[in-house]
């Protein structure tokens, strides 16, 4: 008896706009204002990334992971979410946080090396996750809780292609499937995990195909096509909200910049590859579409770019004008109540701070 070979990896990425910005798929139901909001959010993400990288070079910001080239995925995954939904991201989806209403100065203050005292819990965005892949389980847990509570709430978890090799990614998919959790798990496949290319993470043809092994339906999307990412995410989110369970979404995109400000990608990848992806720039593609549709002209475009740059500069001004936290600030959020031992350690630190201020005696 012949064994039927299935080829789950052989699917074409879903596209609505081709690289020239031509409509090649079904247009999602979005008003002109909403389309321009998406465009502006992508420009904001790029301007923010460029700014923080520049600040890091000047010694005014800590290590920062570049967002450039991935704006369509970051914006497109967050924009269809409802206010009551939850988002758990890595460090490369800061533009998603902005779409969800996390204030720019709050994030910027964290890149000064401080914890902001007022992270907006009501945004239902978890702070960015540094340990690879772990946030996917938090998203699944949030979704399981929503289901237990009977709330019409969906959680979205996002990780990169490297994270799919972690146990937690696989365990998250498995829990999502077994509990039919209202969760959308997104793999932002940007081709590189620092210096290790995508094909060294898994022998499977597409990461979307990983869903099949867990009974989780999946979609493969052109991650540089904002409309495609938006449409697929909206469908996945509302599908989950309607009680039809989880979905895995792989977005194919590319990290144009370095992994972080501490990385030099010329050591491990060809300039030609980067240039080929530059030609597929998600912002340029969407800009062409909007211009074709008479939704954007040169003047308006220039104004948007100026506006987002000013918004970023203003955020930096606000964040830099904020006082640093008190030297003992890192004791603030240990427990609801500080143990006597921690109170003692805190007092001990403050005695040293006082001595330092008095000239180190």
């Amino acid at each position, binding site marked *: 008896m012949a064994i039927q070979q299935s080829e789950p990896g052989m699917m074409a990425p879903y596209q609505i706009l081709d690289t020239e910005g031509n409509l090649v798929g079904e247009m999602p139901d979005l008003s002109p204002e909403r389309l321009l909001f998406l465009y502006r959010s992508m420009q904001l993400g790029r301007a923010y990334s460029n700014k923080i990288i520049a600040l890091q070079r000047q010694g005014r910001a800590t290590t920062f992971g570049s967002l450039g080239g991935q704006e369509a995925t970051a914006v497109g995954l967050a924009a269809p979410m409802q206010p009551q939904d939850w988002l758990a991201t890595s460090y490369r989806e800061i533009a998603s946080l902005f779409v969800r209403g996390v204030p720019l100065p709050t994030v910027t203050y964290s890149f000064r090396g401080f914890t902001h005292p007022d992270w907006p819990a009501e945004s239902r965005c978890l702070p960015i996750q540094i340990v690879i892949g772990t946030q*996917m*389980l938090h998203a699944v847990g*949030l*979704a399981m809780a929503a289901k*237990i509570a009977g709330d019409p709430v969906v959680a979205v978890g996002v990780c990169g292609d490297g994270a799919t090799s972690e146990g937690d990614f696989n365990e998250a998919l*498995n829990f999502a499937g077994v509990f039919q959790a209202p969760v959308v798990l997104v793999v932002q496949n940007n081709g590189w995990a620092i210096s290790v290319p995508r094909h060294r993470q898994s022998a499977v043809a597409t990461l979307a195909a990983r869903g099949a092994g867990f009974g989780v339906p999946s979609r493969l999307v052109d991650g540089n096509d904002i409309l495609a990412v938006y449409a697929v995410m909206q469908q996945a989110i509302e599908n989950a909200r309607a009680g039809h369970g989880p979905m895995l979404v792989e977005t194919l995109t590319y990290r144009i910049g370095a992994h972080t400000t501490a990385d030099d990608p010329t050591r491990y990848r060809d300039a030609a590859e980067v240039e080929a992806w530059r030609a597929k720039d998600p912002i340029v593609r969407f800009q062409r579409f909007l211009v074709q549709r008479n939704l954007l002209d040169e003047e308006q475009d220039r104004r948007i770019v100026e506006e987002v740059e000013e918004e970023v500069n203003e955020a930096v001004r606000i964040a830099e004008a904020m006082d640093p936290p008190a030297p003992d600030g*890192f004791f603030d*959020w*240990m427990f609801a109540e500080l*143990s006597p031992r921690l109170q003692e350690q805190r007092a001990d630190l403050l005695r040293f701070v006082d001595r330092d201020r008095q000239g180190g005696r």
Partner: protein
Amino acid sequence: MQMTMIEALNNALALELERDERVVVLGQDIGINGGVFRVTEHLQKKFGEKRVFDTPLSESAIIGSATGMSIYGLRPVAEIQFAGFLFVCMNQLVSQAARIRFRSGGAFTCPMVVRAPYGGGVRTPELHSDSLEGVFLQTPGLKVVVPATPPDAKGLLAAAIADPDPVLFLENIKLYRSFRQDTPEDHYLIPLGKAKTLQEGTDVSIFAYGAMVQVALEGARQAQQELGASIEIIDLRTVWPLDEEAIVASVEKTGRAIVVHEAPRAGGVGAEVTAIINEHCLYSLLKPVERVTGYDTPYPVPGQEDYYLPSPAKVLAAIRRAMEP
């Protein structure tokens, strides 16, 4: 009512599920099977599969998803089938659950309890008897509780569930069914972070927790008979953070201290108790602090575990050394 520790824990979970609809219980084999030790027996039948549910065999996902649930506003009580398997979920427990409040500047919290059976003397396979509490002394953001009696187990578990921060609740396997004690049937709390003096004395202070409380009591009884020594016994109950006030007050009175635990000696609770004594009451000491502990080896195979574990004889020998002129 006379209860074993199993019954007291089951009673606590039932009461908390009843009292607070945010409480959910999850883990491997905790549903229809009632847990491999039957701590969760009948809970699924009584409270439904939505609130008491089996998970895939996946420790990291149990802790990671419970973290998400607690951020959402539930109060998950997650069971890790044996404490030795906590190593599988260290990342989710140590770098995630314990840091949610810290990382988010207090915007999000993680009020979850992780229950895990631990402890030796019951002839288990490898990694079913290990005592891991020492590992978690260097886990800022996590509390570690180890009850020694049925009524303590109930009151401490209720307090752990009510606590706004994550708590690791370690249950000694040997104590599960070894004796019954009068345990109130109604809800009550025993505060975390407070030790309990079981027996007052003037010559030597013994600090113990979990199953080692019984070992310390027996060693002390023999010392009283043979040496006429007056031994003070303190059940630490919460091993992180330690009740420093109780430790210091006792040593200032007796001038001699012994710490007893099953876990390896290096860098553990005994080392920390010794350091606390050094920092706060070194000059009250008449003799060096003694540690009666497991050895710095893996927990041995069943045929040899009795040599590894602290025993009344080892405690008595330590008391003798402490009492030498």
